[in-house]
């Protein structure tokens, strides 16, 4: 009896917080792609998916119910005492992720550059073929 209520509690928790579930699923997909895919470009895409999972985690943890975009309106600007904190979504997590996206594309570029260099050497993206070439 006790066990079943605990189980339904966790189920309810999962449904209420399905954002975390999606985060975990995205991270699982990304991790699987990085480990199991043999193609280097697919690995890069897997890395980007893993990264979006983490970004989703930050953004959803900074979201508030009933909150608006974190830009103050003209009325509030003129009366700065009228600011209600819970009316605005969390700007801090947003700026962290904003910069993370731009840095992410730069690191994706580095990854792709390495992949191109590997392709120049081995003329394949397939991991096993690269290893075979190296053994020769």
């Amino acid at each position: 009896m006790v066990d079943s209520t605990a189980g339904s509690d966790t189920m309810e928790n999962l449904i209420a917080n399905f954002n975390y579930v999606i985060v975990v699923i995205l991270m699982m997909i990304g991790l699987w792609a990085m480990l199991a895919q043999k193609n280097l470009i697919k690995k890069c895409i897997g890395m980007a998916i893993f990264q979006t999972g983490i970004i989703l985690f930050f953004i959803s943890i900074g979201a508030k119910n009933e909150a608006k975009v974190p830009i103050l309106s003209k009325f509030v600007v003129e009366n700065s005492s009228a600011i209600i904190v819970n009316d605005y979504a969390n700007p801090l997590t947003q700026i962290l992720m904003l910069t993370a996206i731009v840095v992410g594309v730069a690191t994706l570029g580095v990854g792709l550059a390495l992949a191109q260099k590997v392709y120049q050497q081995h003329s394949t993206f397939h991991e096993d073929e690269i290893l075979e070439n190296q053994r020769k």
Partner: protein
Amino acid sequence: MVLFALISLSIQNLMGAAIVFGAYSFMMCLIWAGMGAVDVAFTEAAVGAGVSTVFIVSTIYNTSATMRSRPGGMAFKFFIGVVVTLAGAFLLSALTDFPDWGDPNSPVNATVVPYYIENSIDDTHVPNLVTSVLADYRGFDTLLETTVVFIACIAIYSILRIETAKSKTDETEEGITSPPSYDPSDSLIVRQASRFMIPFMQLFALYVIAHGHYSPGGGFQGGVILGASLILLAISFDLKFLLRHWREKSLMLLVASGVFLYAAVGLACVFMGGNYLEYGILDSILPGDQAMARSHGILLVEIGVGITVMFSMVAIHINLASNGRFDRGL
């Protein structure tokens, strides 16, 4: 959304995977706009859906789009799947310790953030909280993130760039042996359309940088859009056309000068007697009171970020598209 992620991994043709990945980025962009993170959505639309797709496509252009799948290996994939599922199960088991979704009193939302929201307007005169936190309260973070973009740009140069002397001999040999042939990508419609669009893109990007204090936008988004406009120029005409206007050397100098501008603003604050990146101290040389000086300081810093991001995107694209030879490409 999860479906898009799975499709982009399962497609055998890499070009298709890149395009589906772009669609996935657009889905993410909608989700972020829905959670109130418009700046992040803007960045994702410009970066994730635009530039990163172009990077993947230009890499594929230089290599091959087909994947050689090998028989077997299913057991390996299944084994990895089990490992990943276990890791996911561990993550999910920690779920109850996290605050509820949308809880305004969670530790993330209740500690330092109320200060930013309440005092941003008095401190800096900037209504867009994201901009003021980005460039003022969290100025160090952003300085170092900009530096990371700069370092990534240098890394790609050192990985891919091939000596110019070598490529020059290649070029002359090719020029003698092969007559100029018809290029199917040489489309009049594409050229005229991009000729028409690029000025508006650049104008919009400048607006995004300058108006980032009051609306979603700022140095990162505007810089990416400016970079994308030059990348469009490189795609619709050819790489040489772009390089005639922007020398390789001046590109790298501009990438560095953006970071330099950011750091110099910080140093100027030190010389005026304040802390590093404490823009309020600049009120004696910038117009307005201390809060206005912080606002102007944010603008200067955003311009630095925009310059670095713009030219590093262009430089990364040129390297990837021409395989480091800087002669021709996508």
